[in-house]
């Protein structure tokens, strides 16, 4: 099996690579590339993302044909895809970080700044927070409710269809932190930095 981590200059992805390699050991081949052919023929795709919504969307668009290839993979071929942090946020129709930017539109919704209640809550939301699992999700298999995950973000994904939400976390308000829509998965937290529980989520995705 081939799992491809999309390398599109979205910032620091070494931790994502290290964690997937740790979980995959020799059973699964982990490829890190922006090669369209390799993405197309892989079994699963991981879409990481750090920095701003706009910078990540811009970086995706900079690689000719990448958005089309990813859409074909996730929407037409319905193969498993996992978005992490801004990788998840980009599923939305639109994001408001820096400036209004069009997202991939795979999971209808928007990405807005977390309401910090006039400075009552610090931003970014950095650190370990518990996840409240609201729906069974294949990537959350054997993950206990209220497990701790590592977060670092200032913007949140607000999907239109609440049925896609599989977990939320409490910070200022209830923030969506895990989604599942058919073959498309996303986490706002960083499984690659969330110790053993995070590695279990990666394992769940690889084992799908």
């Amino acid at each position, binding site marked *: 099996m081939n799992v491809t981590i999309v390398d599109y200059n979205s*910032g*620091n992805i*070494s*931790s994502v690579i*290290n*964690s997937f*390699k*740790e979980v995959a050991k020799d059973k699964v081949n982990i490829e890190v590339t922006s090669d369209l052919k390799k993405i197309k023929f892989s079994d699963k795709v991981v879409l990481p993302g*750090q*920095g*701003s919504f706009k*910078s990540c969307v811009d970086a995706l668009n900079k690689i000719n044909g990448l958005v089309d290839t990813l859409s074909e993979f996730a929407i037409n071929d319905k193969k498993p895809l996992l978005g992490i942090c801004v990788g998840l946020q980009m599923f939305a129709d639109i994001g408001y970080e820096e400036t209004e930017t069009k997202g991939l539109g795979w999971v209808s919704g928007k990405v807005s700044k977390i309401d*910090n209640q006039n*400075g009552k809550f*610090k*931003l*970014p*939301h*950095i*650190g*370990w*927070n*518990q996840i409240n699992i609201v729906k069974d999700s294949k990537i959350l298999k054997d993950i206990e409710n209220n497990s*701790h995950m*590592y*977060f*670092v*973000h*200032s913007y949140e994904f607000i999907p239109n269809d609440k049925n896609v939400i599989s977990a939320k976390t*409490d*910070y200022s308000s209830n923030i969506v932190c895990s989604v599942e829509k058919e073959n498309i998965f996303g986490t706002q937290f960083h499984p*690659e*930095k*969330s*110790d*053993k529980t*995070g*590695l279990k989520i990666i394992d769940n995705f690889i084992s799908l």
Partner: protein
Amino acid sequence: MLKNRIIPCLDVKNGRVVKGINFVDLKDAGDPVEQAKIYSDGGADEICFLDITASNENRDTIYDVVEKTSKKCFVPLTVGGGIRSVVDINKLLNCGADKVSINTAAVQNPEVVIESSKKFGSQCIVVAIDAKKNGDKWEIFTHGGRNNSGMDAIEFAKQMEDSGAGELLVTSMDRDGTQVGYDIELMSNISLKVNIPVIASGGVGNLDHLVDGIKLGNASAVLAASIFHYGKHSLKEAKEYLDSKGIPVRI
């Protein structure tokens, strides 16, 4: 609920730990990778390396340490010390650091913070503020505490937030190494002034100091070095103690 973080810090010189954990079963007490792994297995919320290598020819040793650690520890890893430029930051992130902490360069050339937070995202840019009390204000020191910049620490903190820093690591030079506790006044003054998380550092001697840093200093995270060294306190003990004092921690 977001938990307060406990961050053990390891001083690394020429690729070796200075003042390490003195565990009997440790094969190599000077190996930063092995020590980081002990901390992460012990429940560290993050791990911090402070590179204190003085000579330029040995500066590359930290990259190797970071690369090896990031393959074994799956909690956030922050690396500070000697970071001068966007190129240095890029190199550390590529080796597997999740955040970098910038001190002297941020004071001398704030453009580094602006540029790097744009390029890599604020989430990985920590600005380290070394401050010393002078009269009724705190002044910023650079070069590992050797040079007084004369700049006001609280104004500088605000400026760094505006420049794109994601967090501030605030160290009291008066307290560092004294084990008498954080400079609570400094921590709370900065924390109330900025809207980004503050990590308190410098002066921890016992577990009550960690409690004070969070409760009185308004810090989001507490960093400590020596109390976790030589097995004086384990991370587990620290967390259980904070929990008993009503501070939310990840246990």
